[in-house]
């Protein structure tokens, strides 16, 4: 039988056709073009690659990109958990609407988010105007990058924590309470450990998404060299100067960072599954 080592027999038709079509499409759209980045980078000599990915402007952009992404993911871990908790445990008027609005950062085009946040946080914007007297400037500073990345990553933690909180067995909490645990002990020793894997996964997803974000950041950051330029912007700048190899080298660094994060997410996923299955 054709390919019996590869595929278990089924009476359904269309296996080779559908698999062949998917593989072809996946290769043409994703795999072959992505490999161009690595082939282009491989054409560089090691010293050239090293100087392209460690020039002072590039290192400053890593610091901003990774720092602001980490900061935004931390803020989202805290407030995302809070929002998930409120949506899962409490009821209040308009809750359905609030629940739907949480996904707005997924649905709103990033360029629209970018110009809207910039107009809010600039010196004469609704929010910026109120912060300026305290000497807090958001638009066109690293703080603005942080604000944009908080917006972009907001739904990840909420959407990964909320179902776990909704599905958690409240009887365990009652048992803990009836055995004399106070409210804080029930939360920190019973509820939080159940939610922790989902919280970490949401945090990692928000972090990964923030690393690659471009559209919402470039408007609010002002793109000042050494100060508010993010790494994706430098890739675009190198492309505009026809420095294809330099752009590819930066892309390799960013892909490596995302890969490490994805690996971490998968490990967390298998850890959380094991955690939930163990008695």
């Amino acid at each position, binding site marked *: 039988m054709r390919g019996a080592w590869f*595929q278990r027999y089924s009476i359904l038709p269309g296996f080779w056709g559908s698999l062949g079509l998917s593989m072809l499409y996946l290769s043409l759209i994703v795999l072959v073009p992505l490999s161009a980045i690595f082939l282009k980078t491989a054409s560089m000599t090691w010293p050239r690659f090293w100087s392209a990915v460690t020039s002072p402007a590039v290192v400053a952009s890593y610091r901003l990109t990774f720092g602001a992404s980490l900061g935004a993911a931390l803020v989202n871990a805290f407030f995302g958990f809070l929002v998930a908790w409120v949506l899962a445990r409490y009821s209040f008027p308009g809750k359905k609407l609030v629940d739907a609005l949480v996904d707005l950062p997924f649905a709103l085009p990033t360029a629209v988010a970018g*110009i809207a946040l910039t107009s809010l946080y600039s010196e004469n914007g609704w929010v910026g105007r109120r912060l300026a007297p305290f000497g807090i400037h958001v638009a066109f500073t690293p703080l603005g990058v942080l*604000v944009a990345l908080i917006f972009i990553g907001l739904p990840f933690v909420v959407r990964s924590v909320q179902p776990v909180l909704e599905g958690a067995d409240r009887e365990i909490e009652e048992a803990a309470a009836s055995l004399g645990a106070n409210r804080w002990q029930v939360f920190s020793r019973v509820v939080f450990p159940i939610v922790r894997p989902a919280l970490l996964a949401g945090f990692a997803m928000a972090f990964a998404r923030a690393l*690659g974000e*471009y559209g919402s950041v470039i408007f609010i950051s002002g793109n000042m060299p050494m100060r508010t330029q993010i790494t994706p912007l430098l890739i675009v700048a190198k492309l505009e100067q026809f420095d294809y190899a330099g752009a590819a080298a930066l892309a390799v660094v960013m892909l490596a960072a995302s890969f490490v994060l994805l690996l971490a997410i998968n490990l967390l996923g298998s850890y959380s599954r094991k955690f939930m299955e163990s008695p």
Partner: protein
Amino acid sequence: MNRSITDPAPLRWGLTLLALVFLGLFVALPLAAVFSQALAKGWQAYWAAIREPDALSAIRLTLLVAGIAVLSNLAFGLAAAWAIAKFQFRGKNILVTLIDLPFAVSPVIAGLIYVLVFGARGWFGDWLDAHDVRIVFAVPGIVLATIFVTFPFVARELIPLMQSQGTEEEEAGISLGAGGWQVLYRITLPNVKWSLLYGVILCNARAMGEFGAVSVVSGHIRGQTNTMPLHVEVLYNEYNFAAAFAVASLLAILALVTLAAKSLLEWKMRRVYSELRVEANPEA
């Protein structure tokens, strides 16, 4: 419910208020800003900004690109889900992981890869130039970049659902003499229609709103290769804020319609798929 595990009212109200303030500041306020800035110069300026020829051509291009991207990712999503959910074969997990890969790639890199392949100094640059074919800085490049960033949407909705539905219904159809396409149209598609629509709506929203990837490959030629998000950027950089926000408000309306459709479909799916489960094991 047991009082000992219910939060006291002041804590409840405090946390709810804090969560709402956070969401208000980061979600509701930006949304309100889009509409208020769009109408800052009145309705007439708003209409003029939307009906201006460059804006209209951006709207047309966005609809065209999103249409092509959604249809091709829909065809791919169905093929991939059919192969992955209905058959057992080696290396399946690798295929599932690869399908999700575009979500892990920065949009800028999604644009970059097509420039490296099809750009003036890319792999096929000379050949394309000699044959007078333009892909980068033209519509085909925008379509490719959009397909890339929206690649997983339909497939990732269909695969888990079709896996959970198993193959018994399709096998019954085949053994009663139905053809492969008949089984697809009469059995599989009706079983997954709501998830399919869900994937299509999310795919479409991202396709219409994509900025980073498209910006890298488009070349920003006004009236020719500007999609709506790129047109917003051009207007904004020209300090034509009211017009920029007017076009942006159309995209914001699209986002709100998408969210409404998404909530409706989630409600519908919970109902339909729980009914299917009850039919499958009535004693449960």
